[in-house]
């Protein structure tokens, strides 16, 4: 089971955080600090796995962004690496050549995609097409509804 997923930049700025298990705010802050310092300190040619307490940290760098996924100890590391990769592929497909700025400015979209891909710490849907269809259909819904909602806001 996955525990959390963090995205942060090379400067250690957090871009996205997803916690699959309930963790207190304080603990979260500490974890984020630990993760950024640990992952950023890694040498370029070393392996993508780390140990942290009883968890395994799988991280991968895509351009200026680090994707950092924590899984249970008995989990398959390579598979977790592919989870990260698949998520990047999904982002890429949605944004079209995704870059850090896309995620900064549309992070809620990144969260939506993540919600369709992973749920409660497990893989939900691995197919790129299916996930995208879901996202697109809800986007459509938004276009349709926005005017209506706008009116509600004005009059209510």
């Amino acid at each position: 089971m996955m525990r959390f997923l963090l995205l942060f930049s090379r400067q250690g700025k957090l871009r996205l955080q997803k916690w699959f298990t309930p963790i207190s705010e304080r603990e979260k802050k500490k974890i984020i600090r630990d993760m950024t310092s640990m992952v950023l300190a890694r040498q370029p040619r070393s392996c993508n796995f780390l140990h942290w307490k009883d968890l395994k940290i799988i991280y991968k760098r895509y351009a200026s962004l680090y994707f950092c996924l924590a899984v249970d100890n008995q989990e398959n590391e390579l598979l977790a690496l592919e989870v990260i990769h698949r998520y990047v592929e999904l982002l890429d497909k949605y944004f079209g050549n995704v870059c850090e700025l896309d995620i900064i400015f549309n992070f809620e979209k990144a969260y939506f995609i993540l919600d369709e891909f992973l749920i409660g710490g497990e893989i939900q849907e691995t197919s790129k097409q299916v996930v995208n269809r879901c996202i697109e259909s809800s986007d459509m819904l938004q276009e349709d509804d926005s005017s209506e909602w706008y009116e509600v806001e004005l009059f209510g």
Partner: protein
Amino acid sequence: MKELMVRAIYCESLGYEASFSYIHAIKLAQQGAGLEKRVGYLAVSLFLNENHELLLLLVNTVLKDLQSTNLIEVCMALTVVSQMFPKDMIPAILPLVEEKLNHPKEIIRRKAVLALYKFYLIAPNQVQHIHNKFRKALCDKDPGVMTASLHIYLQMIQENPEGYKDLTASFVTILKQVVGGKLPIDFNYHSVPAPWLQIQLLRILSFLGKNDQSVSELMYEVLDESLQRAEMNHNITYAILYECVRCIYTIHPKSELLEKAAQCIGNFVLSPKINLKYLGLKALTYVVQQDPKLALQHQMTIIECLDHPDLIIKRETLELLFRITNAQNVMVIVEKMLEFLRVSTDDYTTIDLVGKVAELWFIETMNTVFSVGGDMMQPDIPNSFLKLLSEGFDCVEDDRKLRLFAVDSYISLLHGEPGKLPQRFLQVISWVLGEYSHLREELEPASVLRLLEKLLDMKQTSSETKNWVLMAMTKLCVGGASVSVAQQVSETYISSMDTVLRQRAQELQHFGQDSEVRTRVLPRDTDLENTIFDVDSSLSFLDGFVSEALAAGAAPYKPPHQRQEELAQAKALSLEPYGLSLPISMSSCSIADRQSPTPLSMSSGLSTTLKLDGVKRVWGREGYLVQRESVEETAQVEVPSPLRSPSQQAEANGSHSQTPTQTPTPEPEQEKQQLAASLFFGLSSQSSVCLMGKSGPTSHRFRRKAKGQGSISGATEQTSKTKLNDSDIKGSDPSLSEDSGLVAADSEDMNPHEDPERPKDLCLSSHLPAELSGLCHSEISPLCSIQSLDLSACHVQKDDSLVLVIFIQNSSDSAIRQIPLDLDSDELEVMYYVSRVSDSPVEDVRSHDVAVYQYSLTVKRPSVHVEVVGTVSCPVGTPQTVRFSYKLPLTTFIRPLTLSTEEYGTMWLAFSHDTKQNLTLISDDPEPLTATLSVLKRKLQLHVVEIIGMEGILACRLLRDRPCLMHCRVHAGALAVWLRSPVPDLPDCLIYHCQRALQED
């Protein structure tokens, strides 16, 4: 509103508090439509966690949305439910979620299954009744829903594999279909069919097939197929392969499959990709318990991984080694682990873990060491071992485990054949049992006592050991049965010839009778760190007592060795008190006892602190020393030191000439000694051979490698990029000693060595600063070059300091400004030497010129060789940083220390760190001692304070002003050397250099 909520999320992720917006997030989820609702739900799932009170407000919204006709709203509700939902509200929405399992849309069914999975995780008993619905989900026509249901099954099967054996066939069929590519192309990932599904199934199968042959047989075929299919060179196939291998090794073994799996592991381990190597090591770790041969096949790779720059790989390798530890290789592996520990300082619990493991072995190792090294070893080894055990580490739990482990292992040793164990080991055992056997609760103190009693009855047990045993018994005698045993023992020994034994027996008897006194004097669970030691080194609290006694006409106290001397008409004073053996120095109780013979008055008279100190002090190293100091102090005050008496000196000289024939130490004994010494020196060359035991040619290569690593401690020194090798040590030292007026015998031999370097050396040495040019310097050796800069270095020994001079030669045509040069060292303190020219280490170098940097070095932590590492970067052109290192032997920091014999005497007593060793004597000289000492003087710059007969005392200081004293005595053809210093490790390092100096001569 939506935008605002998005901003609030952003603020939170930047670390700012935005709790005011939580309620609005819930409102948005409730009232919004479309994307607003979605953002609302997202914000809720990001802001709140399962226990947040506001989450209750969401329940109604979720209920409403689950009933909505809008698919997307249902999806959103299910998503948020499967991420978090208050536990006690589950029953409210459970029927609705269950209903969704029959929904026509597969995405809804899938999300519903995952929501149920979540419920199962947080409240398993609430979903008990719908297990058959899970089965239905498993048989769903949509593979996505089926995949989702596997999460639940994996969880349930892990908890109770027996209940789901009947599903094995279905799982196997599913896997077969997946592997066979029967799934829609949608599920492919990089043209591998549904890898997540495959892995999930493999894991389920391994749970089902564990320890079950008939079930395992169902799987063999499909596992084989998986192994064959997964051939493509992609991470995801490796992930599947790894899972296959794990499954194959978990289920009931089948040799064909095992073979294939082993081959797979081989591919992993040998892969150049670091991630695969890691997994390979992990697989090996997993497998090695069943099949140690596999590790043998890959031992070369394992050794390489051990030196891998990546700590993670290193750690994994250690984990693997941990599994293959046995009695033969335990030393090497522990060594490696400690090495690892030294490197990684900030790795949280992993370090804890490795530390713990290493410590457990530590006991085993010490057991071996004690049984082999036995009585040959120096007394401080068991002492420091016990100290370590009692002081413990940071973690209470670890301490307890370690001690328990020690107790267990010793009890079993005593059940075996204790007669074969060396005395010192027996002492250690009895101490540990006395202190910690209460940790093992089911162990009766009486039975421990009986074991200990057996020791007493053995005739080869020395009285010293008996002392330890009796003391342990004193600590143990609680409860009826044990008291009677104790009484019996004390009866036997209370009339012993040995006073100390008698004393102990008395103690035992009285403490046995009066448990109240016992608990006061010997508090249980004495944590050395928490107990404040008020060690009064002068024993001043006895002053009143002593003066009273003196006034009453008692004879002044004479220390034991003095009395012995007087008795034996000793020929010379030994600074080493005879019978330094523990019983005498054991505790101040024995002193008190000598003056007031009743033990009872000892325990209730005088002052309480005395008693506590007295008893406790036995254990600590400090206590041990205090005793010795006080004894010798009195000697100094009361008796004129025979060292200064000319008649005795003459006598001593006479005796010296009378003893030209010395019996050589029997060789096997020496060997043993060497073994013990080398075991502790950190050399593992002998033992590393048997890391993996047999196996032919590979183990040879391995041996060489391990030896190379072992040499850090200094047995062989040409390995690393040592810039300052033997020749320049010699090259510089003789000339130095020429200054001090001694002729160096081998200075001429060294010249040819230096010749090739000469011209460069000369031209650089002209750049030496004026204040240093008068002094002699070591050979100037090149350090590194970076672009047009060449760095060289030498060191200059000044009386009060050691100066490291670094030359930077600029061979380019332009001046280079601001060269950042950084020096650092673990063992040394490096100070930039403020010269007149500039006060900053960043300086300009003109073209074709040389810049000179001076650093003064002082030793922070003595070590046999010290090393300065530095980095320099060239500011011109592409930025580039080069590292270099410069190694110096500790001897370059040693200066003679001139002092008188009296000063020597007082200093000797004040120092706490000592070491003893026998060195070879230069035997072809008529006066071996003088010849040997003059070699030491010449080579190591020790100051010979005085030579009296067969004994000599020398002194030196480590820059700056940290003295080290040396006492040598010719004994049985060897030079017994005893070094003392206030600086830890200094005696050990110095003795190493003495050894070298004498070997070379």
